[in-house]
């Protein structure tokens, strides 16, 4: 059953509803341009909304992200398209055309009031990736409490079609027959803000390939520290023990040719230091160790943040972690080559180990639009010095981690820059000048 293909017109199309995309959209909307934001997830907010607190101010991530999410969703010049996939982005006759597929939520967005009655009644539990897999959600669910839009969706792969959700929904919003929707967004300019994912935790054999209990990723630790975390406190996932000793393995997915990630991911030092600080607040008696190669605290106020962490008693050990194995009592054994002291290989045991995983791109433009990627797989910038947001495609700009690893501060600056380039491009079109 193919529906007629609708087409929507905007000045600008922003691909990605994380902090980069939202900031670009807001900066364009503030200048009076009409913007469409297309997001692949069921909610906007990107990685940032899933974090606990952010360095170096230690603001809660929600305190910064939710108002920007709300501002975008309420802005008259911005329309949000969530749960959407971009199939192609092409230019013809001076117009960019994005072919979009919106995945079915199986819930009527005009009727759903976000009351979560369906979620409470649904009999199927499913691992909740929003909580690092440490808790469960239902087959019908709202992603998290400050998701935008606040609309339920059904995960059909886990749905038994028992009909319970339709029965309890007060507004008859459940629609088991919903189909994917195809539509086209036409715009004059576009910003790619497709973000990142972590380097896979199971890729490195020496680090247990994801099979050692109580070895978790840094984003999983963000959830343990977040106000709405799975346990609402920091305990380890294998058995609920409050850890006495927590270790960070830096560069666990970066600066590592064997993983195909030779570059520095640029945020891991700082997020590890931040998490270590938050942990020492949550667990004042715990020993926290960071095994590192170089501490890269290069942003505004970051070095001072690092020195504060040292002063707080967080142990920084310059060492390469060679191997991670399961110890006794579900503890984790690290084999490390210390680079200070006498350089022997030593074994150290911790209750909980966090892998400071790096960033890899979450989107590949190949086959979708004529924008190429660099050797690092991030989108290629054609003028990295004077105009870092320019891509190879005319009128298409890039912002945030899509153009290489970056922290939030640098991402927000780059999002503003991309908005500036996009608005200048729109201006050039309307005034008929050459670029």
């Amino acid at each position: 059953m193919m529906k007629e293909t609708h087409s929507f017109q905007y000045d600008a199309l922003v691909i990605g509803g994380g902090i980069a995309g939202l900031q670009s959209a807001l900066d364009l909307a503030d200048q009076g341009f009409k913007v469409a934001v297309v997001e692949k997830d069921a909610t906007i907010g990107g990685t940032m909304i899933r974090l606990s607190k952010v360095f170096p101010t230690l603001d809660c991530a929600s305190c910064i992200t939710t108002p920007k999410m709300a501002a975008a969703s309420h802005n008259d010049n911005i329309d949000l398209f969530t749960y959407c996939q971009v199939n192609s982005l092409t230019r013809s006759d001076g117009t960019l055309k994005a072919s979009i597929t919106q995945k079915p939520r199986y819930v009527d967005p005009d009727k759903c009031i976000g009351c979560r009655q369906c979620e409470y009644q649904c009999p199927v539990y499913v691992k909740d990736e929003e909580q690092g897999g440490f808790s469960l959600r239902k087959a019908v669910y709202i992603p998290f409490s400050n998701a935008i839009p606040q609309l339920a969706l059904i995960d059909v792969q886990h749905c038994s079609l028992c009909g319970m959700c339709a029965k309890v929904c007060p507004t008859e919003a459940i629609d088991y027959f919903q189909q994917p929707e195809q539509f086209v967004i036409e715009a004059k300019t576009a910003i790619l803000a497709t973000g990142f994912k972590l380097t896979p935790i199971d890729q490195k054999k020496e680090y247990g390939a994801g099979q050692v209990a109580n070895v978790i990723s840094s984003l999983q630790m963000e959830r343990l520290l977040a106000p709405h975390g799975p346990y609402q406190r920091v305990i380890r996932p294998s058995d609920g023990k409050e850890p006495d000793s927590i270790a960070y393995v830096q560069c666990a997915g970066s600066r590592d040719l064997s993983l195909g990630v030779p570059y520095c991911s640029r945020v891991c030092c700082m997020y590890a230091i931040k998490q270590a600080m938050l942990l020492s607040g949550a667990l004042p008696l715990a020993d926290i160790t960071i095994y590192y190669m170089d501490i890269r605290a290069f942003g505004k106020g970051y070095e001072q943040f690092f020195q504060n962490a040292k002063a707080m008693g967080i142990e920084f050990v310059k060492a390469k972690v060679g191997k991670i194995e399961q110890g006794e009592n579900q503890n984790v054994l690290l084999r490390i080559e210390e680079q200070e002291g006498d350089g022997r290989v030593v074994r150290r045991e911790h209750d909980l180990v966090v892998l400071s995983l790096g960033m890899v791109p979450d989107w590949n433009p190949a086959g979708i639009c004529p924008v190429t990627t660099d050797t690092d797989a991030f989108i290629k910038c054609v003028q990295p010095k004077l105009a870092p947001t320019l891509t190879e495609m005319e009128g298409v700009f890039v912002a945030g981690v899509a153009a290489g690893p970056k922290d939030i501060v640098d991402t927000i600056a780059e999002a503003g820059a991309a908005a500036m380039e996009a608005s200048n491009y729109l201006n050039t079109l309307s005034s008929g000048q050459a670029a």
Partner: protein
Amino acid sequence: MSSNQDKKPTGGQEKVGIYICHCGGNISDHVDVKKLAENVKDLEGVEVVHTNTFMCSDPGQELIQKDIKDGKINRVVVASCAPALHELTFRGAIKRAGMNPYLYEHANIREQVSWVHHGDQATEKATGLVAAAVAKARRLKPLEPIRVEARRHATVVGAGVAGLRAAYDLARRGLEVALVEKSPFLGGRTARLGRLVPSGEQAGEVISRIAGLVMTSDKISIYPCTEVTAFEGFVGNFKLTLRRKPPEEAECRAQLKKAREAGVGKGEFLPGAGVLTPNLPDREEEISLETGAVVMATGFKPYTPREGEYGYLQTDRVITLPEFVELLAKYPDRRGGFLQVKGKQIRSVAFIHCVGSRQIPGIHEPGQDGNLNEYCSRTCCAATLQAAVQVRKAFPRTRVFDFYRDIRTYGRGQEEFYEEASRQRVTFFRFEPEEPPVVQVSAGGKYPLQVSVKDTLTFGEQLDVPVDLVVLATGMMPTPIKEMVELMKLPVGADGFLQEVHPKLRPVEVANTGILLAGTCQAPMDVGEACNAAQAASAKATSLLARGYVELDPFVAKVDPEKCSGTGLCKEACPIEGAISLKERQLDGKTVVQAEITPALCTGCGICVAVCPSRALDINGWTLEQYEAMVDAIVAA
């Protein structure tokens, strides 16, 4: 999540809704939010009390909007973080619900309570602050923002790469731009660099390209050899006085001479200086400029090592990285043999990182201003490795030693550069800040200098490295702009750089609306990062000025004509020229003199309120009556 404690209206017209935020746990870990809600629910005029994990989130804002739309409330009190963060968020939410956004009062129970107090005391203080906010909210009157025309003109201070970038972008968006530069050259510090990391582009080419675009734009007026000497006004309507004069400074004159000798004409690039501006002044003059926004792009200067710091100034064989880069730029194509510096053959060179950066109290000596540069300068690691690799490639017989604390090649393509340095057999030594390398002049040895270090890469071995030259990787310091900081009341951070309102919420703005930050005046950045920041600042300036008008907060003085007896004390006390004037008007058939306020100029400081003998003045939104009610409420709470 939300505890709704409705109660019957009290019959008064002012119906207050209180919205208390947990802020995740930032507030609720220390303030007993439930108890706080209980404490304030029976205050006079309070109709509803809600709590929410994040009141600033969409569901939180909807709580407020629903109560407004349902007619339950007509005054809003939000108890959450500092108003600097989210006052505008909540005003927006209230406005969208159809209520006047100024019928809202903010109680700061995070920065002023939960972050500084704990336990019962915290809850108690929060109760007092919320009670005060309620008392004030009941006395709030609807206000309208002051709309004033905005000039579609922006001024960029500093013509380094960030200033050039900002000027060009603003002009492309249709604004008239004044580009003010203190030297006769465009390009700032970038113009003095060699190859840029990691692309290897020549900095001179980059600068020539953007300066060319700026010089050919008919929207940009360039003011070289010019400084800002006076500043007044407000967003959309700033007035600047500029002083332009023929170049006097010795360095400038020397560079101009060099340009003449090299046959570098106007608009052309002089290595080590920048693009010579087309319009050099031949006489001193003062220029008045009316502008809508000011972009600060005043840049940085390299740290100057103290005499004796790693042997600096004690021998001419210790130089800084910027000096070395300028020397190196002179031998771009030289291949083979040894590097020559100041006529001397350099068989081996040592680079020392973190000179004037990452300084630690108790270890490093403060500078002349008594301050330490505790920050990382971010660009020096990659710049040092760039220079090291360049030396190794161009002069394979010159050996290179690199003394570092942490190698911070964080940027795209930079880590690969670090690896390239290793491949090029640059030898690395790592030191702890407590035990930095020591540079000594070695008398009678084969080499004039010796660098000794306790190398933690070889497990603390004490090593002596003989070298011909030591290069100090000096960090960045903000260009000293003390006069402008005072004139424009610019906020300066503990690190000496200009300070944004918030690194994520308002990263290129300062508290004074209409003044924006671009590039290394704010923090160390590389060229690409400075251009991003400049473009972000341009986007913000464009949003401010695009509509042709700006809206100012209505928190300005007002005169009660019933009470004003025309003493003129207010006018005398007012620090803003033109904000208060004395006007004759007719009252009951008689001519009286009374004070009159020009709202767009008034800053709402309240000095006039304090000096008025007849209490004829008040600040809208912050009236004496409101203050008194707040104090009473705190005492009573």
